[in-house]
């Protein structure tokens, strides 16, 4: 349970020594209670007080790191159930599955397909984050290790799905430096699996036949000292998996039950049973509701475009408007002579407009001015987008472009007259009111 400032204060030395950086012990306690500073900032706390406090002030959900370098991902660490309450901090990560039952050619082909999806969307690189390597018990151990070796040669971080202790050991021997996840513990084998994972220094995935069994297994693992876990919600049914994903997260965050304070793993590929469309629906469902890792069988552009767009939206920080930097964005290989268009710095507006401009194929320069991250009409109503702000911005950047044609958003057509007065050497053109109409408009221009 979260402690109040007063409760924390009672455990401080109350000497007001300022070693922690706060003027008084009381001030320090209040900050700790709000989560602004960590309890360890005070060097004079007794061991006992420290352990009580760090337990009580620890976040409700652990932050688990997997992978290394550029492919290191942070999972969990959430503090709210709904994004409007604060923000979600760790994005859902998608793992594309590969199985040891596939032959070499099929594995190579699939790895090649996975590599094809790699693009940027509002300054975020979009690609399959993880590879999920399933050990099919009918295949030989060596075959699985060979698959792991092959996958380890890619830059992607791995999730090993393997319940067999010896096979897991052999697989980890060839990939543990990449800090993979070993998803393989259950009520029957958790002690051995935990030992294997701990020895290799990797995160352990745990599953159970139902929530009670999972809970008990996690409690036993924690008791044995392993708190580097991910909870697999299971594949018995879609209903149970959804129930588990929601209840695990809710227990951790709303009810402060730390035994379930770990990221989750959802195998949407398995749950969908080979129906690729159902898998798409489930990937979206579990992105919305609490999948930290979502396993899918296929990630072509058809899946990637909506899924990554959804994820980008759900995990934006609601406290910050999504903005793009002001400046000149050349589109379709535009040079300084290309026509200029201007709009606001609200990311959604920029994204819609630049998408349509790209689609038109017409080279043009998109000039983004500072409108406080508001949309065109809102910015205009708030006085952040006016003939004065546009004229000022154009004066700043006019030496970087040679064209003297400026297209303004159709929704602020009223600014045309004022702008013509303020920018006498520019031809001011009014665009259509909706972004989708830009393609035709530019082609006809």
């Amino acid at each position, binding site marked *: 349970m979260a402690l109040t400032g007063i409760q924390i204060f009672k455990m401080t030395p109350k000497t007001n020594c300022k070693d922690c950086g706060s003027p008084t012990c009381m001030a320090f306690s209040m900050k700790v209670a709000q989560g602004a500073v960590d309890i360890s900032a005070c060097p004079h706390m007794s061991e006992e007080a420290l352990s009580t406090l760090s337990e009580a002030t620890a976040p409700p959900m652990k932050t688990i790191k997997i992978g290394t370098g550029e492919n290191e991902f942070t999972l969990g660490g959430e503090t709210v159930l*709904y*994004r409007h309450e604060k923000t979600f901090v760790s994005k859902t990560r998608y793992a594309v599955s590969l199985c040891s039952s596939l032959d070499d050619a099929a594995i190579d082909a699939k790895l090649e397909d996975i590599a094809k999806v790699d693009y940027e969307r509002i300054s975020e690189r979009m690609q399959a984050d993880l590879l999920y390597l399933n050990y099919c018990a009918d295949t030989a151990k060596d075959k699985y290790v060979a698959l792991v070796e092959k996958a380890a040669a890619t830059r992607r971080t791995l999730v090993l799905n393997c319940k067999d202790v010896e096979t897991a050991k052999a697989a980890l021997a060839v990939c543990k430096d990449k800090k993979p996840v070993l998803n393989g513990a259950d009520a029957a084998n958790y002690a051995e699996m935990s030992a294997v994972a701990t020895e290799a220094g990797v995160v352990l995935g745990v599953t159970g036949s139902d929530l009670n069994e999972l809970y008990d297994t996690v*409690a036993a693992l924690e008791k044995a000292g392993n708190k580097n876990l991910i909870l697999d919600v299971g594949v018995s049914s879609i209903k149970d998996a959804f129930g588990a994903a929601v209840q695990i997260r809710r227990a951790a965050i709303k009810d402060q039950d730390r035994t379930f304070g770990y990221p989750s793993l959802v195998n949407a590929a398995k749950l969908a049973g080979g129906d690729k469309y159902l898998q*798409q629906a489930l990937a979206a469902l579990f992105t919305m509701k609490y999948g930290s890792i979502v396993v899918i069988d296929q990630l072509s552009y058809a899946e990637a475009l*909506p899924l990554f*767009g959804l994820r980008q*939206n759900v995990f934006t920080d609601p406290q910050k408007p999504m903005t793009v930097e002001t400046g000149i964005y050349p589109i379709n290989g535009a040079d300084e002579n290309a026509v200029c268009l201007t709009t606001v710095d609200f990311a*959604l507006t920029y994204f819609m407009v630049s998408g349509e401009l790209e689609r038109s194929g017409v080279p043009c320069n998109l000039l983004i001015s500072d409108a406080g991250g508001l949309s065109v009409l809102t910015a205009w109503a708030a006085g952040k987008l006016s003939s004065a702000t546009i004229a000022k911005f154009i004066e700043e950047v006019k030496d970087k472009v040679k064209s003297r044609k400026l297209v303004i958003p159709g929704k602020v057509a009223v600014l045309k007259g004022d702008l013509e007065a303020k920018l006498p050497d520019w031809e001011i053109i009014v665009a259509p009111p909706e972004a989708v109409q830009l393609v035709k408009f530019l082609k006809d221009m």
Partner: protein
Amino acid sequence: MPFNQKKQKFNAAINTVEIGCKEKAIKLGGESVFPLYIFDGPIENAPKIGVEITDMELDNEVAGIKEYYGETASMAEIAKKAEAMEGADFVCLRLEGGDPNGADKSVEELAAVVKEVGEAITCPLVIAGCKNVDKDSELLTKAAEILQGKNALILSAREENYKAIGASAGLAYNQKVGAESAVDINLAKQLNVVITQLGVKAEDIVMNVGTATAGYGYEYVVSTMDRIKAAALSQNDTMLQMPIITPVSEETWNVKESMASEADMPEWGSREERGIAMEIMTAASDLAAGSNAVILKHPQSIATISKMIKELV
């Protein structure tokens, strides 16, 4: 020590709104738990799926949709095929052609379409306007009149025209009223308040709280629905307890990802597959956020979302 399962049940409930008549009538809402949370309590009325058809027939549709409808001569035939689609609970006729900036069909012409479709099918019918506020006032009033006795849902009354549409659909002709606002909990509530002040019963209102395609400001949809369901259930806000209906296809098939041709974007692959995925993923997200009904158009998307709902509820 087993997991201490704490259920989240509320003393408030989402209103139950019935659309359509006789054995094919459907009920939206009624639950006292958060969307799809059947582990907290029962959801008697699973979310429903509508099939979108428009008066513009099938000219602009992708191959899979054209193929499903085949050689259809009339709107009545299209409507019948839509009704028969696997997973469909209701049909949504969108009067797209009424748009003065588009085909600008007359009210009389579209009234004939409404009549034809209304007579052709027995499943519940939802009528959506052309999005032009003035035209919709006339068009939807007329549609409500024609469909008397069918208990249709009229989409939708907005801030600018709620008086005309609320009064005709909700009061004069006893239909259900759709209340459309733009992804903002306060606007949604305000509109419900003014429509009920007209005399329309709260139990006759279904909300369209605004929609977006995944990737296009969808976070606003998520947060608006999250907050509405929280206010409706945990604070018992009677002006936000109306079930939510979300038109999905009219948005998702109009973004770059679903529109770009294979010639323009060869690496993206089949346009139809992209469109289906966009429709499915947006619909699944809408249901997770709190929609009690979604409106889709591709047969594959409808079959898939129907399957997902059956698995979940």
